[in-house]
């Protein structure tokens, strides 16, 4: 292979005279290596998602449905076809009575626009639960407890939202969201504290905390539970959130699950995540502990403190997600909501597919938000594919994404095998670097 040389035309620099001297090539090799690293960083998640969808399509095919039509129906159920319908419409300017010309139809009485609002509505908590997993990951902790932290946030959110009815709108909303976020932070920091003090593995403790939150929620809102509806004692549902505590609807009819302003909170959280992690001392310490706790300890960083803080911040994100869902569109929390919710678990797939970076989590959350909405009973066209099957298809695709992300070594092997064909020297360097 090596005597074959690089293919002509692909290398701009003259190679033959310098080929014997590796030092002369060092900068460009490093540059190319970095490019491949980056390319792998973008391409492997994309490849992962594509392969997962293909495998899901095989299951659809095997059971006698048309995968292409199914995925098209899911795509439309997610409202993503909205972007491809241009026309002459107008859009209302927020907080004014004016409206201006716009090339997309924002009227949510039409299916595509409505489905898109539902996709964004699902994306909002997914961004936050994804960040909850990602932040802990960067500290070397695997936070499985996003679901429990989300539930605790939702429980506290519905409590604060349905009480304190004499508060003004803005303070009430801020109080509710803060309380939800802090509750999540507390729930997460239990695992961090146990990890830091007695070395209990965070995966085990967060799984246990998830189920404690699950049954705790079932107890609180169940029949005879302390937070059950005060008016109707027959239904296992909480009191309704007071109108003053509801987040403002920004797109759509507020009575039909409109998109709420919480999406800006979620987008803001992405920015905060990036800044805290990459531009602050705290983030530096968290990442140092994540790379190598022993080295961090040697460098004077308190590993125990960072474990607790990282888990608390993780829980903060997840708890905020719970609070946003309650004050944004659910407005009440029932035992069933507690038991079927899996937003926190999907956050794991979101974080892993997004490579635990802010940008990646944002896109992965959108992907899963679209997948969940597109396969929901309300959005999917039942003539093309039964929605009960589609919900399970979404679970399978999510599992496959997790499997393939977990096996990115395999995908990197394939990637490197491709490189080996093209440039033998580089792949050896990549092997040593890996």
């Amino acid at each position, binding site marked *: 292979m090596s005597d074959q040389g690089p293919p002509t035309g692909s290398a701009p620099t003259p190679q033959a005279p310098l080929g014997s001297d590796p030092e002369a090539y060092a900068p460009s090799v490093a540059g190319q290596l970095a490019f491949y690293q980056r390319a792998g960083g973008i391409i492997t998640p994309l490849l992962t998602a594509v392969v997962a969808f293909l495998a899901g399509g095989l299951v659809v095919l095997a059971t006698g449905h048309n995968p292409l039509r199914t995925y098209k129906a899911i795509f439309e159920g997610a409202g993503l076809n909205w972007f491809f319908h241009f026309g002459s419409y107008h859009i209302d300017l927020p907080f004014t009575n004016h409206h201006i010309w716009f090339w997309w139809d924002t009227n949510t009485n039409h299916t595509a626009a409505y489905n898109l609002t539902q996709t964004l509505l699902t994306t909002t908590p997914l961004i936050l639960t994804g960040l909850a997993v990602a932040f802990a990951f960067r500290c070397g902790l695997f936070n499985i407890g996003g679901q429990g932290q989300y539930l605790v946030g939702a429980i506290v959110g519905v409590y604060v939202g349905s009480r304190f009815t004499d508060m003004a709108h803005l303070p009430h909303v801020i109080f509710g969201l803060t309380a939800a976020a802090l509750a999540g932070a507390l729930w997460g920091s239990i695992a961090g504290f146990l990890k830091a003090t007695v070395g209990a593995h965070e995966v085990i403790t967060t799984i*246990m905390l998830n*189920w404690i939150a699950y049954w705790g929620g079932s107890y609180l809102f169940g029949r005879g539970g302390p937070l059950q509806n005060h008016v109707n004692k027959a239904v296992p549902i909480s009191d309704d959130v007071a109108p003053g505590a509801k987040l403002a609807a920004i797109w759509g009819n507020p009575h039909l699950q409109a998109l709420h302003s919480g999406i800006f909170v979620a987008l803001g959280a992405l920015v905060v995540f990036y800044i805290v992690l990459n531009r602050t001392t705290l983030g530096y310490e968290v990442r140092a502990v994540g790379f190598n706790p022993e080295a961090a300890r040697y460098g004077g960083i308190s590993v125990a403190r960072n474990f607790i803080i990282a888990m608390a911040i993780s829980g903060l994100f997840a708890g905020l997600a719970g609070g946003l869902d309650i004050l944004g569109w659910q407005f009440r929390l029932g035992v069933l909501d507690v038991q079927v919710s899996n937003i926190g678990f999907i956050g794991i797939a979101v974080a892993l597919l997004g490579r635990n970076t802010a940008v990646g989590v944002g896109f992965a959350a959108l992907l899963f938000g679209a997948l969940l909405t597109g396969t929901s009973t309300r959005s999917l066209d039942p003539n093309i594919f039964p929605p009960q099957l589609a919900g*399970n298809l979404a679970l399978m695709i999510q599992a496959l994404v997790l499997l393939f992300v977990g096996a990115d070594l395999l995908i990197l092997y394939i990637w490197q095998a491709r490189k080996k064909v093209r440039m033998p020297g580089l792949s050896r360097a990549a092997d040593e670097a890996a």
Partner: protein
Amino acid sequence: MSAMEYAARVREKWSGNVIIARAGLALGLFAFVVALPPFDAPVWVPVFVGFLAFAAGIWVLSRGMRRPGWTAIGFGIVGIGLGVLATRASSSNIDQVVVWSALLSATLIWATPLTYAAIGGLFCERSGVVNIGLEGMMLGGAFFAALGADKFGNWEMGLVCAAAAGAGLAAVHAVMCINLRADQVVSGFAINFLALGLTGYFFIDIYGENGTPGDLPRIPDVNINFLGSVFGHLNLMIWVSFALLIVAHITLFHTPVGLRIRSVGEHPRAADTVGISVYGTRYAAVILSGILAALGGAYLSIGYLGSFSENMTAGRGYIALAAVIFGNWRPFGAFAAALLFGGSTALSFRLQQPWPAPSVLFQALPYVLTLIAVAGVIGRSVPPAAAGRPYVKQ
């Protein structure tokens, strides 16, 4: 061992603080028991006893024994909570509800799926592979047992199908964890979601709205009349689980095979050096865990309930995982934990009628106890040294 050494060991084992710590544990349990019949104590008694347990914990803790101290405190708090809850239900209701023999058989019924999955998980973790995917393997077993029993018309084929499904899911986990060195927790989670999606998909695709047929072949009960009402009519799978428990204990601790499994889980490099196949042993252990977990699921679907429904295991795999940890990675420990957790499930269902809301809290008990256990119970739970770490051949 000389008499003095022995005396020193006994002294060490039963020093004052240890006694107090154990007394704290006992008091914490007593706080709950005293609230149930035949004692029926008023509310303040369990609170008082629980506080004593709490105090014992604090005492021990402040004298430098952190783990026993925290444990006693935890038991004290739980004891108070449960004791208060128990006395708040009217005692006449409790009398009707807590029929002890019925409770015992219900405990065995709910403990059995946990026992299978826990012993499976035990082998897996002892070989150094963390298995969060027990839940998914149980669910897969539950569905394919029902499917196999329905399609072939007998329960034996149901069990075979369940075992095959569990082995298949476990094989995926094994390839991921052993060859591809993927994160074992991620892989396990993926297995859970995969099983949830696959079983739900095929269940609806095959059975639709009607669910599994009512005449599904069931695993038979074993009727031994002289054993009385509780043990006389147990399901075959329950008896097999007792046998499995003993076989698992002997295999793990008294045979070369068990030694290999444990050495691979504690120090794979050393095991590799003396010629034990690390990959082979781990593959066998992971696939065995999948088969056992699937049999536990099969007991749920074609043994006890006689039907399948979507997500019917509802977190039992996680309780099994908790039982493994609570039982300190030992078969009898895991079985005791499975009985305890099965008992809390049974109690929860029993107490549902007079007392709907707080009975739910008994469902949370396994998780609370496990949380306390990993935080520092007597002889804290210590996992196998290499659990969760992929092995790279050199």
